[in-house]
């Protein structure tokens, strides 16, 4: 199997779906000649033309609401936000129209929003956010957060096939740093199924996105202490794989939830509460959360480093939990 970067995997998945299905098209700012801010759609306009790779004005509402309109007319839009942060500009249409349309009017909205998210490069408070939990609270939206190149392609295919609005959070820090084997043929990775990134017996880390790699490094360090850590990659937040999380919690009896988004009201709270409700009697310690503190993402490197959960933070959390 060929090795691909996370970015190439997304690009390949998208191209494959556009070749396969005439209804699939992309729209967004600078997606055409420029190939998108991160070059995911580089060369697409040459292949598919300007009406399937549509350069949009700087108008997030028109992008999201426009995609919704196209979806209602039978197309399968894949809209790119230049940065995930800017989806807030289109919040109203996403939350008010797209998310509720199926429930109230019976008309499905099969759109995908590609959202380059995450920090780690001094992008400052408007180019680094992980706003997934904000949307997890809105019934009707699905949320995907791939960590590996293989998943990025397979989950994108599922997202495009899905008859609902899907928010596809691509972690920018993984784009060119993470490589992995990606099958050339078409495959769809189902939404709502977690993946054991690293098996272990003593403690479970539940995480997703770029934090999967932070958890993995921490787990490797704990191996030296003789503690066996399981890293469970959730892959999708809505729907999320309760069974896999509960099964792992029951088996290891200790759980740490790790995410890059801020702590209060973050998705980790939902996971911790579910474990407390459903698996309390199996626990040998409190469910711990490691997340960003409740502040906007700061720009200056020492502040940003203090903000984003680091391997050492996770190691300390795991040691405390293991010793509990």
């Amino acid at each position, binding site marked *: 199997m060929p090795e691909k970067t996370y970015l190439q995997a997304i690009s390949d998945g998208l191209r494959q779906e556009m070749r396969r299905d005439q209804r699939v098209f992309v729209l967004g*700012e*600078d997606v*055409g*000649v*420029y190939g998108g*801010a991160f070059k995911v759609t580089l060369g697409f306009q040459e292949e598919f033309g300007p009406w399937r790779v549509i*350069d949009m*004005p*700087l*108008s*997030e*509402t*028109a992008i999201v609401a426009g995609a919704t309109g196209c979806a209602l007319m039978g197309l399968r839009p894949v809209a790119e936000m*230049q*940065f995930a*942060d*800017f989806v*807030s*500009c289109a919040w109203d249409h996403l939350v008010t129209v797209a998310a509720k349309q199926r429930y109230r009017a019976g008309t499905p909205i099969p759109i995908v929003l590609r959202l380059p998210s995450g920090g780690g*490069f*001094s*992008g*400052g*408070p*408007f*180019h680094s956010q992980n706003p997934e939990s904000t949307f997890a609270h809105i019934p009707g939206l699905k949320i995907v957060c791939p960590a590996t190149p293989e998943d990025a392609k397979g989950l994108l295919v599922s997202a495009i096939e899905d008859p609902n609005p899907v928010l596809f959070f691509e972690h920018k820090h993984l784009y060119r740093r993470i490589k992995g084997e990606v099958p050339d043929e078409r495959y769809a990775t189902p939404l709502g199924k977690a993946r054991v990134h690293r098996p272990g017996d003593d403690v479970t880390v539940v995480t997703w996105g770029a934090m999967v790699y932070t958890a993995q490094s921490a787990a490797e360090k704990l191996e030296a202490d003789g503690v066996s850590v399981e890293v469970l990659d959730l892959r999708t937040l809505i729907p999320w794989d309760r069974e896999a999380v509960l099964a792992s919690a029951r088996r290891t009896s200790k759980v740490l939830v790790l995410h890059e988004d801020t702590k209060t009201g973050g998705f980790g709270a939902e996971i911790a509460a579910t474990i407390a409700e459903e698996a309390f009697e199996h626990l040998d310690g409190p469910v711990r959360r490691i997340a960003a*503190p*409740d*502040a*906007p993402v*700061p*720009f*200056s*490197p*020492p*502040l940003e*480093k*203090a*903000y984003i959960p680091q391997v050492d933070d996770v190691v300390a959390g795991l040691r405390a939990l293991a010793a509990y």
Partner: protein
Amino acid sequence: MAVREAEPVGSLQEVKDAGLDREDLLGIYRNMLITRGVEERGHILYKQGKIPGSFYTGRGNEASAVGVATAMGADDVGCPLQRDMGVHITRGVEPWRIFAQYMGRVDGPTHGRDGNVHLGDANLGLHAMVSHLPAMLPVAVGMGLAFRIREERRVAVAWCGEGASARGDAHEGMNLAGVRRLPVVFVIDNNQWAYSTPTYLEYAVEHLADRAAAYGFDGVVVDGTDVLAVYREARRAIEKAREGGGPTLIESLTLRMEGHAVHDDAFYVPREMFEEWARRDPIERYRTWLRDNASMSDDEEDEITAGVKRLLHESIERAEASPLPDPATLLDGVFAEQDELETPHHK
């Protein structure tokens, strides 16, 4: 209502009539040089790895930014955007603090919390931009609303790129300003490319200033490489707003002479376009005007150039001496304290 196309500024007398003396004229030149110098030095510092994140420059926009800011009164306020370094310089933000901001140091106006040109100094009447363009435009309209409510003779200036003017925020802000005839001046820096997107994919009117008619106020197109013409139009618009005459939309036409940010080589911009606009470089153009019309001498010019060079050098040294923020301060300032409302700009 037809949009007006502004004439170029001709003679020294015409400029004097518009309220500028010779010292002001040299000051404008100096501010334009500092503006470009801060960005050129910043770019080098970025390449040296001393500035984290990304880096945006406004080469080509200097006349537009400096011209409008020169026309503002001391009590007027503004919300500049990413190509408007000249506004900060003209309003008196010290270059060393701008470098400190770029470098993420504690002495930058945002103390390391935000980066690059996302800065402002509320005490100088400038409010920091946010990335979500043009989110501060309707905020500036709100400032104008406050002046109207309190019956103050102050004006708010809102800057916006031609690309950003497509968003609903711009429309809502301009509409409100029109309905209530608020003392707001809108400056659209039309530098012809929104990232890689050319104007014909951004808007379908001939001039963006045409939109003013739809909001019920005046629009004017000005050559954004002619600092004095920009100044004259901005001053007219600001004084009109101050006298209760309502908003004006100024479209200032120029070219973004570099890529969107340092990572972008602007391959999509035809080279002839760069060549053509390089001949209209706002600083070069104004230098020639000063020599021809205001008899700027070699000595005067050398003195200004040397002074700017010195200033930039000292500013970088001072910024580099500023510490990086202490991680322990990460959560400071997420919420404001009660007594902060007693600051001058809130009164």
